[in-house]
């Protein structure tokens, strides 16, 4: 009898011990999500692979989910635990101040995410901003080099803007407040920003002004003209992983940050543009692209 009791005690201690270890320092499955375009997807994949290398299980179902509205909703509701976020636009979306200083944007994003119980990790030196792009012929015809040049002829042009532009403070809001361009007066073709469809629409003259990502490889490849945002409306969009606190509480937060921050620190603007190009233009497999880069940087063993 006594022996039995000892056993029971031992077992319950073991159970408690086990519970503690999964509570604080375990490696629970991480559900990663991202915006729908290739750059966001490949950065999410980079984070996913480096976490897998360190023993975490990753659920990729949310990668390429859609617009910021969609990924935010998924993150805030716990359908995903983490996504790479463009810190300036991300902060602005939630009512934060956006600036051209990424450090301030990171603080601001953390501030607006505090009540959502979400933590912002270190950001990349690389930046990608929302860009308005025209073909060379259009730029020459209307003498366009900066966004202000668009104001007087805005209603004559055909615009390709993001499907969420109408309600976005950095899109329709910025156009109106800084440039006096009223979204409601424009001929807009709503398409996914930075998507192949948007490229195709500009390529085929369905639109003349297209909202693309500044790192978008198609701009260089096609010799398109990236107009200068002369009123500085678009935030400095470095990328940082943002993660739900309830997931971090189940693991060793410092260790996770220790895995992700060094990776982010290596992603400069040229890297972003290159990863983006390999996926979007060269049509390479997103996992191969991420693995090759991580290997080259020494985060993963060299490919066999």
């Amino acid at each position, binding site marked *: 009898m006594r022996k039995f009791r000892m056993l029971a005690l031992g077992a319950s201690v073991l159970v408690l011990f086990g519970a503690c270890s999964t509570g604080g320092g375990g490696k629970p499955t991480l559900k990663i999500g991202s915006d729908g375009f290739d750059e966001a997807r490949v950065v999410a994949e980079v984070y996913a692979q480096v976490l897998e290398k360190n023993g975490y299980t990753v659920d990729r179902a949310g990668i390429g989910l859609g*617009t910021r*509205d*969609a990924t935010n909703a998924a993150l805030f509701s716990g359908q995903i635990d983490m996504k790479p976020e463009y810190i300036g636009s991300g902060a602005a979306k939630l009512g934060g101040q956006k600036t051209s200083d990424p450090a301030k944007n990171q603080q601001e994003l953390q501030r607006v995410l505090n009540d959502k119980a979400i933590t912002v990790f270190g950001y990349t030196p690389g930046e990608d901003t929302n860009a308005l792009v025209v073909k060379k012929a259009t730029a020459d015809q209307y003498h366009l080099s900066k966004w202000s040049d668009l104001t007087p002829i805005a209603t004559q042009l055909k615009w*390709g803007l993001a*499907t969420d532009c109408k*309600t976005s403070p950095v899109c329709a809001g910025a156009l109106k407040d800084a440039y006096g361009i009223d979204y409601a007066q424009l001929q807009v073709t*709503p*398409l996914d920003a930075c998507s192949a469809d948007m490229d*195709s629409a500009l390529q*085929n003259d369905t639109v003349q002004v297209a909202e693309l990502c500044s790192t978008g490889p198609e701009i260089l490849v096609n010799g398109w003209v990236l107009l200068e945002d002369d009123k500085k409306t678009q935030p400095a969009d470095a990328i940082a992983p943002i993660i739900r606190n309830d997931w971090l509480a189940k693991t060793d937060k410092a260790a996770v940050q220790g895995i992700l921050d060094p990776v982010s620190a290596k992603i400069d603007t040229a890297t972003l543009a290159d990863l983006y190009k390999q996926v979007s233009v060269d049509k390479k497999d997103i996992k191969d692209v991420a693995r090759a880069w991580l290997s080259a940087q020494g985060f993963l063993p060299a490919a066999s």
Partner: protein
Amino acid sequence: MDLVVAIARWLSDPAHWQGTEGIAARLGEHLLLAAAALAIAGVIGLGAGIRIGHTGRGANVAVNLANLGRALPTLAVMAIVVPITAGIDSELGFKVYPAIIGLVVLAVPPILVNAYTGISGVDRDMVEAGRAAGMTEGQVLRSVELPLAAPVIFTGLRSATSQVIATATLAAIFGGPGLGRFLVDGYAQLDYPQMWAGVILVAALFAVVELAFALLQRAITSPGVNSGYVLASPDHRSGTVRGEAA
């Protein structure tokens, strides 16, 4: 519950019904898109299906080709044709033509297969009796085969129309017109009332069209002919006909 109220409020806001981006305009675009696709698919599907059903020639090729069309996702068809049509017309070739072509590919199979099955399923004795009575081939087709096959042919049209009404929402993905705009924009903007209003509008349109078809079908079917009498009854959903192989 809040969502239901929000949807009702969205739908009852007069501002959402007016203007170039209002419900009335989008509904008109949607119907135009569907009608254009169905008109083209009708010419192709009925023309080929009736001819094949009457002559019995090329049935295998046509029916297999139609079934291949059925296996192609509309979105894939659109993505494939965009670069081609956009090169021809920068505006409609990007936003409208790919959707019409995708919808035609979707609508031809049920129309063609039902037309073929309807015509070829008419009792051969009746066709021969017509010929024996001195009817020309055209008269046999018009006076014997078409009236008897009408219910099955009609079911193919009805099935195609339902599918086209629902699938025409895809046009919005390529920046196109129609009720799909509410779905795509509502999702992108996380404006669920707008998105659900779009869903409800498409469903309502679908119901109205189905009802109209049911009444029309009753009106045009010759007295004494009904789908239970002449032929194996068609499986309405998929547009295939049970017993087709036999």
